[in-house]
């Protein structure tokens, strides 16, 4: 079941678009904002509200890498692996992050604190290598900095 708040937020979007389907990506973002991810149940509930089949909506959901169809940890760490960061030392940063967290890309720490994902160019190339933790961008990374940054997220 969608909460009243989720429903209200989704319906507020409907006035901006001529079709209900157009709101579906924003609707999934809203649910994900509240719950951390988009479950099969949420796909069904959003689909009902927007008059889309679950299959159609899941087809959209799985196209977009920022829609999470699996549960994620309290903090999502996204390490840029595109070309400028690669030149500036992405592989060392990746080793540092995976070593410190004890997980690989696509995994979540057992204490549910962090999920680690690769991300395409974050548009911070003058500060490469860079990573995004939740909503915060961290640039000019070096191996020594990474641990301190991650420790700020409890």
């Amino acid at each position, binding site marked *: 079941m969608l909460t009243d708040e989720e429903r209200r937020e989704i319906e507020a979007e409907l006035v*901006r*678009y*001529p*079709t209900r*389907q*157009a*709101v*579906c*990506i*924003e609707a*999934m*973002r809203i649910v994900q904002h509240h719950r951390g991810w988009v479950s099969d149940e949420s796909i069904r509930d959003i689909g009902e509200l927007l008059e889309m089949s679950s299959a159609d909506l899941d*087809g*959209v959901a799985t*196209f*977009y*890498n*920022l*829609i999470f169809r699996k549960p994620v940890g309290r903090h999502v760490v*996204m390490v840029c*692996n*595109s*070309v*400028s960061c*690669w*030149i*500036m030392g992405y592989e060392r940063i990746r080793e540092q992050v995976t070593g410190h967290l004890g997980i690989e890309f696509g995994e979540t720490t057992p204490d549910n604190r962090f999920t680690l994902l690769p*991300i*395409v*160019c*974050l*548009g*911070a*190339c*003058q*500060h*490469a290598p860079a990573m*995004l933790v939740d*909503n915060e*961008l961290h640039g000019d990374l070096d191996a020594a900095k990474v641990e301190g940054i991650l420790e700020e997220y409890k």
Partner: protein
Amino acid sequence: MPTERPLTQAILSDGQPLSLQGYERSGGYQGLRKALREMTPQKVQDEVKNSGLRGRGGAGFPTGMKWSFTPMGEGSPRPKYVVANADEMEPGTFKDRYLMEGNPHQLIEGLILAGYAIQADVAFIFIRGEYKLAQERLARAIAEAYTAGYLGKNILKSDYALELYLHVSAGRYMCGEETGLLNALEGKRANPRAKPPFPQVSGLWGKPTIVNNVETLVNVPHIIEKGAAWFQTLSHTRDAGTKLYGASGKVKRPGLWELPMGTPLREILEEHAGGMRDGLRFRGVLPGGASTDFLVEEHLDVPMDYTEVQKAGSRLGTGTMIVLDDRTCPVGMTSNLIHFFAQESCGWCTPCWSGLNWARQTLAAMEEGHGESGDLEKLSFQSKFWSPGHTFCALAPGAAEPLQSALKFFRDDFKRHIDEKHCPWRS
């Protein structure tokens, strides 16, 4: 004479966004006032056409001409849409983020003027999900613009009305492709659409739609306020205006600079970026993001504009360049680029999803010492199918540019990987 920097000179150096008042004090919204007071939509289109402004998102299509294909007048289909493409995801590109975070109202004014020029009813800013700070600043600026009467009904007491919405995307490079973006806005997978029909005739929900890059749009208020002739004087060459150039990689001072269009590559890399870091030598550069051909030492005196970079065998693209040094493996760099394109392929066209994935595996194997004789010929052959006409959109053609040029300029490095059965850059 000091160089004029219309797009960035008002941006604050402390990282804070320019406020509405600050923007107005710097001449902001004067272009819009002038257009609504004394210019017809056709006149606005003509001024932009005469200015010679070309699209700053990478393709370089003349902006005024793009607008001119929109049906105008009584009986033209409604609503019409105008969209700012703020889905900056071309690897190595970080210019639109700076423009939006530093001066959000400048983009809003540009979008309103573009909307007025084609008599649009609704505007969207389509921004990538990772650009959180730009989203916050744009959302606040849009609310301010409504309160100040720049958006909504009867803009500045005129008959013109425009609603502006911020659409936050959920990822994928394909969303920056014009027709993929339209599908994304309609709540679909961002596969490309066949052209024709072009979006100006049949875009969002089948209605006339224009899509312009952020840097393109922020030029428009200045062109309208100061005129097409002024805009022509800003550049060093026949392609008009200024350009945000950037450099990343192992240069001394990676960064972003607004300079006259046509500034030579050497000046950007050596004066503005400070040259290579000590002990490193320049080997090559992707002049305008990941999907442009490598240029090398012999090209350093090329003026960075659309015409001259094309003559040199590459593209100006986004104008934000990625520098390759002599301690970085060109095969590894190419492998990283092709990995990106293969991952971001939407799966719509076979030469793209299948061919790119095959090339990704071949290059990764070469990096691991498993390259085989004949790989280079096969890579050349395969990438010929990534050209316009074999695919719906520019993703695969964009991937072919760095690969084919790397095979040309760094062929010995590829051969060494195959012959020596390991990457010579790895100890």
